[in-house]
């Protein structure tokens, strides 16, 4: 790596040398700092503020990765966050360095980003892990504080270029109606390189957040609930009947 590239710095929330839940196999997961969304089910709220975390140079990060390569043969690396596209210049260099080492690269992103950024990143990414928070624009805004138009467009574009795993969080009474899922199916059917859909059950992570829930009957985070197992299995079946591979 040339010395100038190696010196660039990323603002990193944390590192997990043994990740098994963000992409196939054992993955070294880099959680980037900063996120433009404010999701009610955020499981890494400490990573939202771009000013948090610590600065790490690309050289230092690659030194850590290199020592873990024997474990990553069937897996690879995943960049997560936070939202990695906020620091896309660093992320692009990092993904590229991993790619040069023959490591499989996954980008866990909300894709709330400019298309230019996405176009820049696509060549370095082997797998996109993306999530649809809600298909309904207003409800999406209620759950995340942002509109979903840009996100859905970007997902479609990414899926036309690289394999995609689509994640969907089931929240009782919020995202788990038949209509919600049929909307999701309609969207997912048009995703060219979609490999599978991961259904995640909502987990509050015990964090109470004060916020507005526009468009919903509930008003507090603590009122959000995971759906019953029966509901999850129903959703799984519905998706499978529509030809998707589903992981719960």
């Amino acid at each position, binding site marked *: 790596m040339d010395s100038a590239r190696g010196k660039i710095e990323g603002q990193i929330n*944390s*590192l*997990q*040398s*043994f*990740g*098994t*839940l963000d992409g196939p*196999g*054992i993955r*070294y997961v880099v959680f980037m700092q900063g996120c433009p969304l404010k999701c009610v089910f955020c*499981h*890494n709220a400490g990573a939202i503020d771009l000013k948090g975390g610590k600065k790490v140079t690309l050289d230092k990060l690659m030194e*850590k990765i290199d*020592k*873990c390569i*024997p*474990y*990553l*043969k*069937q*897996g690879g690396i995943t960049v997560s966050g936070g939202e990695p596209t906020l620091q896309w210049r660093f992320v692009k260099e990092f993904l590229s360095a991993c790619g040069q080492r023959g490591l499989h690269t996954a980008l866990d992103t909300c894709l709330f980003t400019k298309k230019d950024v996405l176009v820049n990143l696509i060549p370095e990414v082997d797998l996109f892990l993306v999530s649809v928070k809600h298909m309904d624009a207003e409800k999406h805004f209620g759950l995340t504080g942002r509109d979903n138009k840009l996100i859905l467009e970007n997902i479609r574009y990414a899926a036309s270029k690289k394999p995609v795993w689509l994640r969907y969080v089931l929240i009782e009474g919020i995202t788990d109606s038949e209509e919600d899922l049929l909307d999701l199916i309609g969207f997912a059917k048009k995703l060219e390189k979609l490999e599978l859909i991961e259904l995640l059950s909502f987990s509050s*992570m015990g964090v109470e957040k004060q916020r507005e829930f526009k468009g919903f009957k509930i008003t507090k985070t603590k009122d959000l609930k995971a759906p019953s197992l029966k509901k999850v299995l129903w959703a799984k079946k519905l998706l499978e009947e529509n030809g998707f591979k589903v*992981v*719960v």
Partner: protein
Amino acid sequence: MEETDFAKNNKYAWREFKGGAWQNEINVQDFIQANYFFYSGNESFLEKPTQRTLELFSKKKELLKKEAKRNGVYDIDVKTPSTIISHAPGYVDRKLELIVGYQTDQPLKVGIKPKGGIKFTEKACNAYGFELDETVKDIFENYSKTHNDGVFSAYSKDIKNLRHNCLITGLPDNYGRGRIIGDYRRVALYGVKKLIAEKQKDFEKLSFSDIQLREEVFEQISALEELIEMAYSYGFDLTRPALDAREAVQWTWFAYLAAIKEQDGAAMSFGRVDCFFDIFIERDLKEGTLTESRAQELIDQLILKMRFVRHLRHPEYNALFAGQPTWITCVIGGMTVANDVDKKPLVTKTSFRMLHTLTNLEPAPEPNLTVLWSESLPGDFKEYCCRISIESSSIQYENDDLMKPLFGTDYAIACCVSAMRIGKEMQFFGARCNGPKLLLLALNGGKDELTGNQIAPAKPVPSGEFLDYAEVREKYLFYCDWLAEQYVNAMNIIHFMHDKYAYESLQMALHDTSVKRFMAFGLAGLSVIADSLSAIRYAKVKPVRDENGIAVDFEVQGDFPKFGNDDSRADDLAVEAVNAFIGFLKKYPTYRNSEHSLSILTITSNVVYGKKTGATPDTRKSGEPFAPGANPMHGRDTEGAVASLNSVAKIPYSSCLDGISNTFSIVPAFLGKTEKDRIANLKGLIEGYFAKNGHHLNVNVLDRDLLLDAMKNPQKYPNLTIRVSGYAVNFTRLNKEQQKEVVSRTFHCSV
């Protein structure tokens, strides 16, 4: 090759076997290489336990319940010192038992072995409400000296002092040293008559310059004669080789049984039998005299025998080695090493059958099932091991690719992590010293931090308000050297006396007459040493001294790198600590020219050691447990499991030939979303660790909540088995402190 008379006489016993060097010399390894059937398939052939096994199992469970009600000891024979032939045959149910033989005339009844030390025998009896027989007491107090008496006749004041102050704990000076593995298979392959004849030949050749060995070989022959007598009392003729699979298992069990009737060593391992038994089983299957179900039955019933092995232990011993482990370690798998091109996995259907006992007979701590893992093992076998690990948390893994260049293709593991060639190498076991306490000695000028006693040479305490790394390091190394000399002296005395007063004649009869010996030293608290030195070097550490100048606490300003995050700043300090210690040990000559070796293994003694150690500069409070074995300290490995494993993998095996133990606990959900993912990821983790030259990995796959519930409601979890440092234990048999320590360990999980 010309056929010897012995081969001719054994034509029937050895029918169908491919001949070779093994026919003309005692050479089980050669027999296995020539005859074993490599199995590359999966577990689909395995059978459930037979009705007979299930009935026996249920009867045995009843006995275990009674034993638990009686404080863990079913009965003690306080009158009859246990020898190979001391007791009449014992049975649970003759009709159901395919493999027979218990240590005394009743299952679970414990024998006494006063040769180790009469005081401790008496104490152990009393602890369980029994009175030692007066005659036995009189004999061993007044007429026959014991190992324990011998050792204390020769110990110096210094050694007694450092023992008393817990700088070295658990030395085998009042109990059997163990860690010797007889080649029990020899009895099945050759019959005892042949083994006696070979020993007699050896005896004739012995010079008069080694009178000790002359006497020992004589004792070995007597022990073999007693083995014949013991088996005869059960109605079997062990003079000849085994004729079929059932006899092969029975003969081998008798050999092991004789060893554990004679000795109650801390760890009495079984060795390596998967390929060996498989050869006999395959022959019977081919001849149509055995079915798969009956083959599994033989293995199941052998495992049930192992689970009923008992030794009399005193309460202090139990504090060190909780849950009454017997370490009947059985290694499984590994590779042949003929050369790189011809190398073949030593995996047979019986390798599967042995692991399958964890399914057929529920998980249990014994035997200590140890998979010798190589990159080249067949994928199906690796996946099967990982699946059973996830289901049972009862398997440990050791790196065959690391050990086979040093120990060949027919080695086994004694205790937890000690490799040795079967029948060719043995070790003098030496427990372990307390590394963090040693560091505190350096900070306190040779005074013990808890008692204030001057137990090591006096030196000025480090100067200045904050500790200076260079100064501390120099003082630490000085005391390391001092301790090494004391430790070697103590070990030389112990093993001289053990040979003299409590010689393992049967186990050594199942070794070559000329053996290689290791002297196995140990170091506890490695991660505390590394983190303490790291704090002194990279942060500011101010000792808080009491009125006597003893550092009773430390104020740490600033952060410092910690062992367990793949950070060389901290990890190198751990590496230097082990290299320095083995280096100092090697300066001092050993009894019988044994080779110095070192283990980083604590068993459960990390709790007791921690309890007896003051606060350390790494912010560990006085009395807090150390991490087990070579593990990073609880909760300090913050970059995930791989980084944690990588730190431990840096400890050089070449400096720690007696093993480097790492205990790994992970929450099932964090291993992957589907069973297939979990198996693949565990496999990837083990493969990665061993590719990085890691030596040993205990794998626990369970939720912390489950353990917390088991602490509250032990009756709900009679079979909850977990891996601790180098062995498995029934969780509910640990004391509360040990349970708490296990629960506080790092469980790798998501945020």
